[in-house]
């Protein structure tokens, strides 16, 4: 189907997810997928295209618009030994499913002394792309603090596949956060099955003068900012977290000890955000460093495209923040 370059082929973001899910449904005859429009429609972003035809309606199940019931059912099925992927198209609506996710899925292992595991993945799509206040949020920091919950967020095709493979092998609940603006992207993917382990960040761009720690779609924003900064002779390192819980503090600290400057970048809110956690933990380990936390302005994401763009970090704002920190005191 795709151009093969060595042992890789070029695929759309949605196809990377689909392949990982399809391989799991193939390998585990018990495993199921459920969510709104995951069946004959093939998923809201066609990320499950063809799975309904391959695995049938008993294993690829369309559900009503009832997120609490979907995740509740998923927790029960997973606890009974049925590996379950629940798809919630917009991350905003994971709020409706917080009770089964937080109070049941995440706590089951602790409550039962490890006797009950919940191998469930909740896949959600975050990010702003013209869909207004209740279909645009990036709420991953809300979930990072829940003991027992793992949270991952790919920024590219290869990680979309590898993190989904890992998520579908985990024995506890995982929230897999993708992003609306990643679906038009494509990239090279190894044709051999493989996983991206949780808790392992990656250096997307090496640099000497500042560290930008980010995840998901904001990785591309950070890399664009680096191009602007390179013109001024400022050489930035970009760390793609990939996994928010567990968090790879070692990779972050190795970078910040070298650059002495930490900029955290996320599309969600700054208050109690991913960056707040990172800034605190980095300084607990390394002592004071220059820090700037970037994220959305404290307002709902607007339906107005001009206001939407104004409310979110972009390359120019990231570059400004880095310039400010790196030239401070000089």
């Amino acid at each position, binding site marked *: 189907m795709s*151009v093969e370059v060595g042992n890789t082929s070029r695929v759309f973001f949605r196809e990377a997810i689909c392949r990982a899910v399809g391989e799991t449904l193939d390998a585990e005859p018990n495993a199921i997928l459920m969510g709104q429009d995951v069946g004959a429609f093939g998923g809201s972003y066609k990320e499950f295209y063809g799975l309904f035809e391959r695995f049938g309606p008993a294993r690829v199940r369309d559900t009503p618009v009832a997120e609490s019931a979907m995740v509740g059912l998923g927790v029960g099925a997973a606890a009974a030994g049925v590996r379950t992927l629940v798809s919630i198209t917009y991350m905003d609506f994971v709020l409706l499913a917080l009770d089964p996710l937080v109070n049941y899925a995440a706590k089951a292992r602790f409550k039962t002394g490890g006797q009950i595991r919940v191998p469930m993945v909740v896949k959600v799509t975050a990010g702003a792309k013209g869909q207004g206040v209740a279909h645009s949020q990036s709420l991953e920091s809300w979930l990072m603090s829940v003991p027992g919950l793992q949270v991952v967020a790919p920024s590219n095709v290869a990680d979309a596949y590898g993190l989904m493979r890992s998520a579908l092998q985990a024995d506890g609940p995982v929230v897999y956060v993708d992003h609306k603006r990643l679906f*038009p992207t494509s990239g090279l993917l190894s044709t051999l099955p493989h996983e991206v382990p949780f808790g392992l960040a990656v250096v997307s761009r090496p640099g000497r003068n500042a560290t930008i720690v980010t995840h998901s779609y904001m990785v591309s924003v950070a890399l664009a900012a680096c191009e602007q900064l390179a013109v001024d002779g400022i050489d930035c390192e970009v760390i793609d977290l990939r996994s928010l819980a567990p968090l790879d503090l070692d990779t972050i600290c190795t970078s910040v000890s070298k650059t002495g400057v930490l900029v955290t970048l996320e599309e969600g809110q700054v208050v109690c955000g991913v960056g707040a956690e990172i800034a605190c933990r980095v300084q607990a380990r390394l002592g004071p460093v220059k820090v700037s936390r970037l994220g959305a302005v404290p307002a709902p994401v607007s339906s107005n495209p001009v206001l939407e763009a104004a409310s979110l970090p972009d390359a120019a704002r990231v570059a400004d923040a880095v310039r400010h920190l790196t030239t401070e005191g000089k």
Partner: protein
Amino acid sequence: MLYKLLLPGPIADLSEVRVLEWHGSPGTQFHAGDLVVELDTHKAVVEMRASSHIVLRKILIEPGDWQRVGEPLAIVSDSADEPLPERAEDLAQASATYEMV
């Protein structure tokens, strides 16, 4: 007359798509409304249809290969007997463009 059969655009958010299937081979005649080629995009399979009578002469992008929006997918002509340049660069000179619907 020879034409470059273009991948129409712009397509929102997208710079490149993949050819899924050609519904003909060199020599196939298409009439207005006939399905010429199916494309894989980030959202769906998109059908491209002929907007008038044309003859498919040479496929430039094979199934599974990618092309940028606005670039040629194939060479087509008004009639089947128009001579086709052998050299790729001469084909690329085919200045007229043909847009599908």
